């Protein structure tokens, strides 16, 4: 056999699916404390990833946060003909079955927690809840085994909450409350960490307006600890300690952010059913094929 430069590269790319299979073997073989959590898995790649990429774009479009970056990273890989092989790992964490009564959820017994959990199901930013903390710990161990298995094969990989969230909304896996997505490939030195897909976008202007702005908002104590007339100033004038009020910080709504937030939900609600239909079609088309 002789495989030339292009052929051997393509063969290596095709091998990513084999690694994904091994990753799932590792997930299923991961040690557990309670030994009762069933982790469901799926492998998605190629054009079947498109609904997920589009959903990430939709969520990240205006706020330029992590979903937006992941969308660009995935999109670039897809456009260049080397879409990542995504391993989805999900589990239903909402019901405690271990009978540990450990208290980590905040309730004295598992029965009390399960009662509360049944009545208070809801969706957060990443997951359905409430969740049993021991289940959550098992899920973490299983997902780490996935990452470790991928790293053994020297595969460029990263675990994404955003991909898991999208898969949860689009029902790539059903009857689960939390999904994490593990991307395998493309085989570049850095694809998910230094993010070559963002190189062109990340100009000085972008850095100043986006990164530094977020930094100032998020970590105000790091940036606003001067006692002068800096803007935005927490402390009103030089001798701030003489001020009549102790309220050095005031809370005001961020008009821009609120607008994005208000527009995002209707947009997602409008687009999600169509994407979900497509995922359903993908699942129906691939049913019983075992990835062939």
């Amino acid at each position: 056999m002789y495989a030339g430069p292009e052929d051997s590269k393509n063969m290596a790319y095709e091998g990513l699916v084999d690694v994904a299979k091994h990753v799932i073997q590792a997930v299923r073989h991961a040690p557990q404390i309670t030994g009762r959590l069933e982790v469901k898995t799926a492998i998605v790649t190629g054009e079947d990833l498109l609904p997920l990429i589009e959903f990430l774009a939709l969520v990240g479009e205006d706020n330029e946060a992590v979903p937006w970056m992941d969308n660009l990273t995935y999109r670039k890989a897809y456009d260049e003909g080397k879409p990542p092989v995504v391993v989805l790992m999900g589990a239903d964490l909402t019901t405690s079955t271990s009978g540990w009564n450990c208290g980590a959820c905040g309730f004295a017994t598992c029965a009390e927690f399960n009662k509360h959990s049944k009545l208070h199901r809801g969706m957060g930013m990443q997951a359905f809840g409430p969740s049993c903390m021991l289940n959550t710990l098992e899920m973490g161990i299983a997902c780490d085994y996935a990452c470790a298995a991928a790293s053994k094969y020297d595969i460029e990989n990263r675990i994404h909450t955003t991909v898991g969230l999208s898969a949860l909304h689009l029902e790539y896996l059903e009857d689960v409350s939390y999904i994490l997505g593990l991307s395998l490939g493309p085989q570049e030195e850095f694809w998910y960490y230094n993010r070559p897909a963002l190189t062109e976008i990340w100009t000085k202007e972008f850095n100043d307006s986006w990164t530094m702005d977020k930094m100032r908002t998020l970590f105000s104590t790091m940036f606003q600890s001067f006692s002068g007339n800096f803007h935005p100033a927490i402390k009103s004038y030089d001798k701030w300690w003489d001020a009549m009020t102790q309220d050095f910080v005031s809370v005001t709504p961020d008009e821009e952010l609120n607008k994005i937030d208000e527009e995002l939900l209707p947009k997602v609600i409008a687009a999600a059913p169509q994407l979900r239909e497509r995922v359903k079609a993908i699942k129906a088309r691939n049913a019983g094929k075992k990835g062939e």
Partner: protein
Amino acid sequence: MPRIHINEWPPYAPSNQNSKDCSLIAAKLMMNAAQTAPVTGGVDQIEGEIVYGHDELDDIARKMEELAYSLGNKTKEDQWKYEAVMVRESDVMLFLGDYRAKETPMDSGCGICSGTIDCGYVYERRRVAAGQIDITDRSLCKTAIDGPLCGVRIIDFGHCVGSALWMAKTLLVDCRPFLTMGIAGQKMGYCRNSEIVVGLPIATTSKNPYVDIQLDYHVFNMEKIIDSVRKTYIIARQAGPDYRLRRLSRKPAGDEQEDE
């Protein structure tokens, strides 16, 4: 160069101590593997502690046996007692704890703990001052772990435990994660900053001490069986002839002419 001899039996003899020392190295590598596990946002949040030595491990086992009864959870009573035996059969104990799970949540509104889009579930159930969780009053805890804890931190903690386990697997030492040992260790002051601690006992014996556990293992294990043999055999030996005066026949019965 000195000779390094390894032999599993008897436990804690110099030859066994040599292999236990190697388990200690494995435990240290596992602790570092846990440090490098992927966590949300790359935020450092775990601490580790290694416990080594016969008496130190026995202390943990005793604490577990105490908790088997004092926690009052009948369904887990056996599990506590069985796993205490495993601690005694281990070479080294590695504790991993997440010190952010209780005090400094991720604050991302992920919904894992509550199913809501905010972190109110955790903050409402804690004493809070200036937006920070006040953990100074430890008398409030009525359960083994003082919840609620942050779900994102727990997922991350799972990654850390998983990495340590993977390192153990890579080094071919026997290891499994145990919550019982974690809780006992935390109550004894190991990984004291963490509300949730997992115990990872490490052993390098021919038989993995953490699998194939018999029923009533707390009284039916190697240590107890050997002790039972010692007790019984000593009784059987209470009387005997003077071996210098009387040579016992090893020939079949009826063929004893040669004996005096």
